């Protein structure tokens, strides 16, 4: 029986719900020996800021139980080099490309969205709002519903393409933030970004990360992510993209049943660089074997 694996993020049609998460897939190029990038739903490239960022001092990563902490510090080449160098390469990969953006101020987000809107070969914009708002004393945009909505609003106004807002889980009630950005007119919500965490080396009595605090990712955070996807999908009408420790096909199905229209594979790419392509194949087989004819049937099973 022929099955339809495709899903829609607003007007954006994905061949299947498998995407790769920003910051875990470089600009795609590194993974070409292991994955046919055009077989994926989409790839989300490493977050881009207005100006180049060197990132944090090392150590930047540390392994924890079933997960890892990172404090990369948003290292990236900046939007100019991204457009002139990286996009030229990315267009040759045959993948559907979502560009992740991040800023220190509303003006940063506005300018980034405007600059990228003129660039060919971009399917959608994903907005990282987990970064500190420099003008507001460094409080992350994503922890305040009003600020989150303002960022969403400026990007939506500058962008002719679908806009996805990526939510931070480091908040008291994520549904409040989700509703605020939905109201601002975004196409979809992706969640979760990493959970703030820490590890200490007891031999040196020093934090294991130079930045002291980092973002926890990997299978350890999956139940938290699944719960938040479920909560957000329960209160918004726009598509939700699930992220957080997704490694296996069962994880993909769980997130879709909790209400995700698509999923992003993150830390699992580090462990097995071929995993995203394997999940695309596995997902199609799952639909065939389970007697479902469309991927969309799965979305939000447990919400109904």
């Amino acid at each position, binding site marked *: 029986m022929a099955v339809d694996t495709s899903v829609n993020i607003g007007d954006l049609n994905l061949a299947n719900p498998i995407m790769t998460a920003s910051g875990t*897939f470089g600009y795609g190029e590194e993974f070409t*020996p292991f994955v046919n990038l055009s077989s994926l739903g989409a790839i989300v490239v*490493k977050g881009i800021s207005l100006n180049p960022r*060197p990132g944090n*001092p090392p150590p930047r*990563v540390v392994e924890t139980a079933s997960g890892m902490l*990172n404090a990369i510090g948003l290292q990236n080449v900046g939007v100019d080099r991204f457009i002139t160098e990286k996009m030229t390469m990315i267009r040759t990969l045959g993948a559907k490309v979502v560009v992740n953006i991040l800023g220190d101020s509303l003006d940063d987000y506005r300018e980034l969205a405007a600059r990228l809107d003129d660039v060919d070969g971009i399917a959608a914009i994903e907005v990282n709002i987990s970064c500190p708002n420099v003008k507001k004393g460094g409080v992350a945009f994503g922890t305040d519903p009003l600020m989150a909505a303002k960022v969403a609003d400026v990007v939506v106004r500058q962008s002719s393409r679908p806009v996805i807002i990526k939510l931070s889980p480091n908040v008291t009630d994520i549904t409040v933030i989700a509703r605020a950005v939905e109201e601002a007119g975004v196409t979809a919500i992706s969640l979760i970004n990493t959970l703030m965490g820490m590890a200490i080396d007891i031999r040196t009595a020093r934090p294991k990360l130079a930045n002291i605090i980092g973002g926890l990712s990997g299978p350890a955070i999956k139940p938290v992510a699944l719960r938040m996807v479920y909560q957000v999908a329960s209160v918004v009408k726009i598509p939700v993209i699930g992220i957080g420790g997704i490694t296996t096909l069962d994880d993909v199905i769980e997130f879709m049943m909790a209400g995700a229209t698509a999923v992003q594979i993150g830390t699992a790419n*580090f462990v097995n*660089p*071929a995993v995203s392509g394997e999940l695309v194949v596995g997902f199609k087989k799952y639909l065939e074997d389970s007697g479902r004819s469309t991927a969309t049937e799965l979305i939000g099973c447990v919400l109904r």
Partner: protein
Amino acid sequence: MALQYLENGEILENEVVGPDTWRMAIRAPKITDAAQPGQFVMVAVGHESSDPLLRRPLSIHRAENDVLTLLYRIVGKGTKLMSHMKRGEDISLLGPLGKGFQLHATEHHCLVGGGLGVAPLLFLAKEIKRRLPDEKMTILLGGRNSKELLVLADFQHVAPVLVATDDGSQGLHGLITALLDQEISGPATIYTCGPSPMMKGVASLARHRNWPCQVSLETMMACGMGACLGCTVQRAGIDETEKKYVHVCKDGPVFEAGEIWL
């Protein structure tokens, strides 16, 4: 881009060769064939479990006749699990990764290894002998004591070996930098791998003697292929720009000593 493979290898041998130090030989024809000295592989140590989650970066110790050999020390849960793996089992490898040693004609190749840092140097020594058979080569090995002079006999089959130990139980009683300073004169090219203070000392001596010096680094890393950006070291003489850091997995693990802050 250089060829990289995700290859399931068959373990042919996994045995103790020193204090907490093991050697694993794996039949992995594709990676072995593509490997260059100084490159590394990411080794899946957790079977199908998520803890430990990440692969372990290990430098390539030998690569010949379809067999890749790794020398590793038990430092945590991952390497402990690796030491429990048995002959005949499969192990997943990703590689070969990174930029290895650059081989140029020179008057005297000096390989300087400390502790487990000898791991990539055996592959290098064999390649120098194979590709530049007429050139002089000396291998200097150091360790805390004679037991920590790992796989000494394997090196002695390739080229003359000089040793130093911290406790004087074999060779020079003292640091390997002292041995290098005493024994090597005239033009030379240095290739070094070992604990960071040792490499710092070797690089500093090389600078004073005007010897080109390549250092092989080890850092924490998640992916090994340039995606996680976790394995940074700072460049020498570069300020706050996006070029401030280099990545051990892709720009290295072998660097010119003057290129980075050791």
